[in-house]
């Protein structure tokens, strides 16, 4: 499973000056497609929080964070702040996924489709793994059933490789299971 968004831990601080020999070190966890973008995002957020820029700061470490248990399903809650056409809003969204990167990817695609918000207008405030009892959204809670059972209603059979795909077929497809 290759994910578009990777989670990085970025650590940086302002450059030491005569007045401030040991400037405070700041660490951020953020999502980006690659390391370069992660570093850029780090300075973007840090500029908003502290009086420091990339030109008078230094990057100390950047590490990718990988999912600890990618074979278990978790409910992720994501708090985000996004810019719509008329202003800034906060949002809380829930996703069921095996990895946090997968949930973030779901979040970005869903925000783009439902609210027409592009990637650069979204700021992730907080993410958390939510235990099943505390989930708020019905669409995640409906899968919290140990005896879950549903039929697959519309089953379009695809050719097993894209090479075997043809534009015209001899007969109409059978869509039942």
């Amino acid at each position, binding site marked *: *499973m290759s994910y578009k968004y990777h989670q990085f831990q970025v650590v940086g601080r302002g450059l030491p000056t005569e007045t401030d020999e040991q400037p405070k070190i700041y660490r951020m966890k953020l999502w980006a497609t690659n390391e370069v973008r992660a570093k850029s995002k780090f300075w973007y957020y840090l500029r908003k929080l502290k009086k420091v820029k990339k030109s008078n700061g230094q990057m100390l470490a950047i590490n990718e964070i990988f999912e600890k248990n990618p*074979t278990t399903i978790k409910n992720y809650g994501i708090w985000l702040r996004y810019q719509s056409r008329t202003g800034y809003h906060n949002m809380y969204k829930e996703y069921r996924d095996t990895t946090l990167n997968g949930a973030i990817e779901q979040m970005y695609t869903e925000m783009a489709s439902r609210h027409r918000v592009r990637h650069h207008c979204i700021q992730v405030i907080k993410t958390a793994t939510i235990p099943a009892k505390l989930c708020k959204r019905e669409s995640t809670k409906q899968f919290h059933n140990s*005896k*879950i059972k*549903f039929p697959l209603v519309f*089953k379009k059979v*695809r050719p*097993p*490789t894209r090479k075997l795909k043809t534009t015209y077929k001899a007969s109409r497809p059978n869509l039942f*299971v």
Partner: protein
Amino acid sequence: MPFKRYVEIGRVALVNYGKDYGKLVVIVDVIDQNRALVDAPDMVRGQMNFKRLTLTDIKIDIKRVPNKKTLVAALEAADVKNKWESSSWGRKLIVQKKRASLNDFDRFKIMLAKIKKAGVVRQELSKLKKETTC
């Protein structure tokens, strides 16, 4: 026409697209409307879209997300491999695989066998024809 094959924990499915094409996997949990957590004895437990799965009639008795040992034991207990290979669907797939892996000499042998079989059938038919006309 009610539905007979359901997506449920323990349902055996055939992978019909992608890297694991042709494998039998067990649905171990449902992530959301489109994806399931899927496991098989020879692969790491992972997620798969329902579009890549074709459900079979076989269902085994497991709890939600069993560990590998329990899963293999349940597969043995339900005798999934033999049930699959004796079902008409499973047999067809085995024949398809065999046909795809033939070399020229095998195809020659099959040609001779087909001719022989057709000869025997035609002899019996002519015998029956003679009985009815005379």
